[in-house]
């Protein structure tokens, strides 16, 4: 039997991006002992890659903005599938969460009178995103990290959790291994917060880092928690497409916020060709008005490039499929054209979009101040995830909380850009606070050694196989399959095929072989992560099959229209008593009357 060390924490936070760090800081502030698990090194989590900004109705740039407008924008963007209470809390609390970061040392770009500057972004009616050039995520994670290390949080770096532990119905801890030596550790905890991010690594083309293997989704699912809205996976419209090795790397929406336009190979601004009814009143009908909007003209309406991500991504796919794409299978995104409008355009671009300039110059030999970029959709964000109580962030398993991308509800069928960073802060704080309160009312449970032994044995089995398969190959095949069959444009036949393919992949994953020993072994880590990728892939496919309409990020060519009669439900996935994945529909909860009125008012 493997021996293991045990750590005891009142609150164990799994994941150290924005949500996890914010949860750990908050729990610690409530006077409980907090452990923080990082899959990588501290400060490297995916939040670091967020670019455009954090959405909060500070109304520093346009005084017409307030929480009600932000709330309505979020609900409209999510096609009204959002958890309305989360959307309300988020819109109300985001400004305080952003100002708090400043008190912890964050330095946002400023307005002329020295307040936090805000920029335009898709689906936001007014300039709302507090930002630092195009590296807002770095500023945010570093601020939280540098503040957090002085708050008495115990940090475990390069640790991966492979199972949650339960006593009866309640969560009682977690089991994981350290990457350096491959030793197992048990964390006993009175409450656990999952903040593990997304699932992008289930797809071939993604903006997500290697960690994004759906760990939190899968851990919660196996522990009996419900997942909702898993069919809603956001494909960001603009990822790099060339050269092949950088395919999928994100090109911030901030490029379009600063005046960047999308063109097909004929030089046509194709976004003007299809403007959805829901947004017609808010969208410019000529190029001049769109330009004025990006330059802060309060009477202008947004250019169609700043429509919601689901719509922009589909328009790009349409152009590519019709043969009007760019040479490497994308479309053109041009910011250099603003030199026709302003004298010092190159300097403005470098100042406002420094990492984009750097990224294209270094990786693609493109000078974005002089020539257009080639871009195409990339798997970016999972709207679906662990079902939580809006106020406390507790999942359907007592003592198990979730926040950030691995939790679901706020974004509904489609997330607005900038609403993720604010989500992390608002609900990270709430999860940390309520996990601490829960921990104060509950004790430690005894850990079942037999259960630990069986999980450890199972996770070491790939080392014992002599004839198994290469885990990397299984992962590549899964990524190709999900990209082809459950991608941006979906249909019944392909998704049925995906379900069949997933069964085969699950069998192959049971038979992977790992070479070498347990020290920092990428093959072993991939073999273990595969289990999580397969679970979330199955949930995505089942939920996408069940929703026979097109809404938000979920687009079906066999059901291309929205179906308001039959589409107003949340898809709920959970594990059945015999270990199978089962799916059902839950009707949407009725929106509170006063919020309904706000939505009607702002139509």
């Amino acid at each position, binding site marked *: 039997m493997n021996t293991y060390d045990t750590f005891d924490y009142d609150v164990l936070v799994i994941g150290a991006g924005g949500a996890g760090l914010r949860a750990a800081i908050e729990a610690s502030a409530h006077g409980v002992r907090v452990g923080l698990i990082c899959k990588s090194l501290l400060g490297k989590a995916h939040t670091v890659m967020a670019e455009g900004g954090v959405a909060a109705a500070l109304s520093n740039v346009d005084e017409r903005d307030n929480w009600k407008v932000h709330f309505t924008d979020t609900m409209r963007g999510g096609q009204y599938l959002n958890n309305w209470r989360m959307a309300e809390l988020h819109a109300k609390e985001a400004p305080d969460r952003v*100002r708090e970061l400043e008190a912890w040392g964050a330095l946002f770009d400023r307005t002329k009178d020295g307040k936090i500057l805000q920029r335009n972004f898709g689906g936001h009616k007014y300039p709302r995103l507090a930002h630092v050039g195009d590296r807002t995520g*770095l500023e945010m994670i570093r601020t939280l990290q540098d503040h957090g290390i002085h708050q008495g949080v115990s940090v475990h770096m390069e640790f991966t959790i492979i199972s949650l532990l339960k006593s009866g119905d309640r969560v009682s801890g977690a089991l994981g291994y350290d990457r350096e030596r491959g030793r197992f550790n048990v964390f006993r905890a009175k409450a656990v917060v999952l903040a593990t991010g997304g699932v992008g690594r289930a797809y071939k083309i993604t903006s997500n880092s290697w960690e994004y293997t759906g760990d939190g989704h899968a851990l919660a699912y196996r522990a009996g928690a419900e997942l909702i809205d898993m069919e809603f996976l956001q494909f960001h419209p603009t990822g790099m497409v060339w050269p092949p090795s*950088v395919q999928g790397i994100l090109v911030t929406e901030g490029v379009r916020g600063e005046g960047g336009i999308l063109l097909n190979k004929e030089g046509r601004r194709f976004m003007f060709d299809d403007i959805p009814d829901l947004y017609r009143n808010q969208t410019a009908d000529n190029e001049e008005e769109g330009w004025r909007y990006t330059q802060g003209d309060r009477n202008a309406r947004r250019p169609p490039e700043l429509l919601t991500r689901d719509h922009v991504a589909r328009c790009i796919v349409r152009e590519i499929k019709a043969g009007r794409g760019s040479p490497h299978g994308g479309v053109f995104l041009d910011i250099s054209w603003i030199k026709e409008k302003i004298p010092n355009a190159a300097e403005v671009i470098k100042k406002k979009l420094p990492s984009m300039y750097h990224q294209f110059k270094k990786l693609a030999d493109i000078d974005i101040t002089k020539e257009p970029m080639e871009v195409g959709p990339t798997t970016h964000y999972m709207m679906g995830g662990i079902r939580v109580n809006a106020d406390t962030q507790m999942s359907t398993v007592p003592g198990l909380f979730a926040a950030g991308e691995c939790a679901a509800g706020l974004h509904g069928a489609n997330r607005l850009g900038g609403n993720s960073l604010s989500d992390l802060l608002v609900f990270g704080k709430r999860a940390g606070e309520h996990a601490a309160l829960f921990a104060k009312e509950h004790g430690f449970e005894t850990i079942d050694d037999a259960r630990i032994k069986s999980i450890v044995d199972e996770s070491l089995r790939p080392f014992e196989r002599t004839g198994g398969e290469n885990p990397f190959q299984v992962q590549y095949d899964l990524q190709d399959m999900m990209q082809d069959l459950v991608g941006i444009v979906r249909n019944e036949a392909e998704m049925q095929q995906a379900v069949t393919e997933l069964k085969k992949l699950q069998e192959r994953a049971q038979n992977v072989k790992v070479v070498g020993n347990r020290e920092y072994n990428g093959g072993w880590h991939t073999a273990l992560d595969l289990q999580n990728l397969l679970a979330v892939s199955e949930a995505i496919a089942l939920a996408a099959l069940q929703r026979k309409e097109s809404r938000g990020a979920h687009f079906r060519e066999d059901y291309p229209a929205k179906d308001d009669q039959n589409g107003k439900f949340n898809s709920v996935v959970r594990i059945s008593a015999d270990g199978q994945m089962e799916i059902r529909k839950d009707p949407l909860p009725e929106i509170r009357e006063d919020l309904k009125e706000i939505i009607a008012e702002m139509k």
Partner: protein
Amino acid sequence: MATVSFTIFRGNSPDTGGFETYSTETDEGMVVLDAVHKIQAEQANDLSVRWNCKAGKCGSCSAEINGMPRLMCMTRLSDLPLDKPVLLQPMKAFPLIKDLVTNVSWNFDVKKKIKKFKPRPPDNADGTWRIAQEDVDRVQEFRKCIECFLCQDVCHVLREHRMHDEFIGPRFLVYAAALEMHPLDTEDRLPDLKNSEGIGLCNITKCCTGVCPEEIHITDNAIIPLKERVVDRFYDPLHWFLRLFKKS
């Protein structure tokens, strides 16, 4: 496409480890990290490599490429001589874990010892401050740092002289500069910089600036101004003379 060879350090100790050479097919636009991943997936499943974003934003994949400290994800094969094998080694300033991965935890311990941000009281009743963009810009250069620790790796005080106990290294001098020059900060870090943090050990050879993937002017904009502040405070004859009176 072309076949390229890579000679990669393998092992969990500098004494018992050694180099292995792998050949792999390469594609247009590939970076070193792509090639390492390909080798890992196809030929050496247990090859250890640390990485996250593959976009130059997280600073995880630091290594030494043909002897130069660089990010593997931002080094294109087309910028390297490919007629001979590309040499890949782990960073030398930190203890080896295995293959291309080192134990960089010392950096996290150092950071924790630097006095934290301490803002002046808010300017406004709602708890907010007014800050000019110029004041933000000056510090933002330092806050761009992605903590790849390449500057620490190349610094001879750490790399050759192993003075990890006396010197915090360029990364944390940049961190201290970001705090000291933060428009809201009121803490005094100069005594620590002079004493426990060893700013005097830097003899401004600018090696750190040369390897910074974020192109931060580490020496000119962070270290030299901090050195000047330390000199003004502790070595300026007039200040020294005035301090005598303060003490009495």
